[in-house]
């Protein structure tokens, strides 16, 4: 079953990028297609981060093991989309003007947060193989807890870049809070004695 699901999910995950390129090619991205490329790749990074974080609660909910089997791939897709996002920033926004980029990172909090999230996500992607998992042992798990920090940074990055309309970043923040909340819940209930266990 998983052998079938995995390639299907893989293709589904690639679809946003494929659609972006197809629409770009056909000049269907509106008057400012470059802005759409940056915006869209950023949004998909965040979405994949949240989807990845949803896998653990999903497993608890369904009792099936397949969400955890997909988690690594989904996390890597988040890294894949952040790379696309970063490339659009370096090429389309600044055209390799490294001095300007450095100034941007230092001076503008939303860039600082975004860049930090990318830097933190990189070792997680690098250590996602089975080999690295084995080699790092227990440390692997604590290292990969960074995903929570990265998700917060990602949502903050979005919050700080909108001009006035906070609707979308608020939606992402709420989903992230829910994903955090469902993780806290068992221990919280245990402590308050509400949980029959």
């Amino acid at each position, binding site marked *: 079953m998983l052998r079938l699901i995995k390639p299907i999910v893989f293709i589904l995950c690639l679809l946003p990028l494929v659609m972006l390129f197809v629409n770009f090619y056909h000049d269907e991205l*509106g*008057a*400012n297609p*470059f*802005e759409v490329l940056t915006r869209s790749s950023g949004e998909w990074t965040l979405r994949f981060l949240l989807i990845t974080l949803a896998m653990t609660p999903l497993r608890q909910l369904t009792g099936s093991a397949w969400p955890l089997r997909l988690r690594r791939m989904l996390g890597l897709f988040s890294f894949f989309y952040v790379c696309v996002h970063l490339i659009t920033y370096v090429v*389309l*926004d600044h*055209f390799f003007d490294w001095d*300007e980029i450095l*100034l*941007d990172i230092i*001076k*503008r*909090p*939303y860039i600082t947060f975004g860049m930090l999230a990318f830097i933190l996500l990189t070792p997680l992607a690098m250590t996602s193989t089975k080999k690295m998992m084995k080699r790092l042992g227990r440390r692997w798990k604590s290292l990969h807890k960074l995903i929570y920090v990265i998700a917060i940074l990602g949502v903050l990055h979005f919050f*700080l*870049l909108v*001009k*006035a*309309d906070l*609707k979308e970043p608020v939606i992402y923040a709420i989903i992230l809070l829910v994903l955090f909340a469902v993780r806290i819940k068992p221990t919280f209930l245990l402590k308050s004695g509400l949980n029959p266990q």
Partner: protein
Amino acid sequence: MLLKKTTDILASEITDKAIYEERRKFMTSSAGLAAVASLLPLRDSIAGYGGKPLSSTKNTQFDIADTLTSYDKITNYNNFYEFGTDKYSPAKNAQALTTDPWSVEISGEVEKPGMLHMEDILKQHAIEERIYRLRCVERWSMVIPWLGFPLAKLIKQARPTSKAKYVQFETLYRPGEMNGQKRRVLDWPYIEGLRIDEAMNPLTILAVGLYGEVLPKQNGAPLRLVVPWKYGFKSIKSIVKIHFTDKEPVSSWTKSAPNEYGFYSNVNPEVDHPRWSQRKERRIGDFLKRDTLLFNGYAEQVAHLYTGMDLKKYF
């Protein structure tokens, strides 16, 4: 002083003069317009070249040699928060707006306050075509052939008193037709303002059309301000009120984020937006960004308005 002369336009972007003249002659004749309209690919039937033609004479005094942005792009990429906060919604949502009948209230420090009807405004003023750059605070820009008349003409008619130091403009508030106003993204109605000398500057116009036709609704129909040396949000759309006052108006964006959007909001590559640099801009349609010019390239006409002012302080 931060003022410097900026007339640097790349040789590559200058259209051959003969071709350019020919093009303009062709564009301003109504037959030419119809022909252009039929040649341009129309992506959206709502926002095609479907408007009422408006006759005008061209004013080439402030002409720039930049290539015009296409009608399609000018009318499908709009910041008009009254019709949604993304740039693609206004083209669709603004069609719900009733722009006829329309009147504009003149009030405050003037000898002749009152209501002006849109038909009378159109009758009283000779319409000129002017090609201006438009630079958005978000770092994109366009070149637009506006139809309009100098705001100074309307101001002179109203006879401002000596107390009229500023002009405050107000956009229509009609949530029933302007669906973006149902959410308080900004403090509605949208307010903008100019110093009286900025308002009287020959560059400042009230626009009633573009590309030879009446203003499309998403571009601020039926009457909008165009102040080409300031960031786009200063050029308030769908105006219903012009108020003369001795107090500096607080514009909607200043109210929303005072540290990011000042009263002046002059285009200035040396003054950063707190969240991004204003050194460069993407001309809609271009791949590479270009340098932003001081006062959007209109320093010659407007730099004198700000002599002795610290433009970083009065951003």
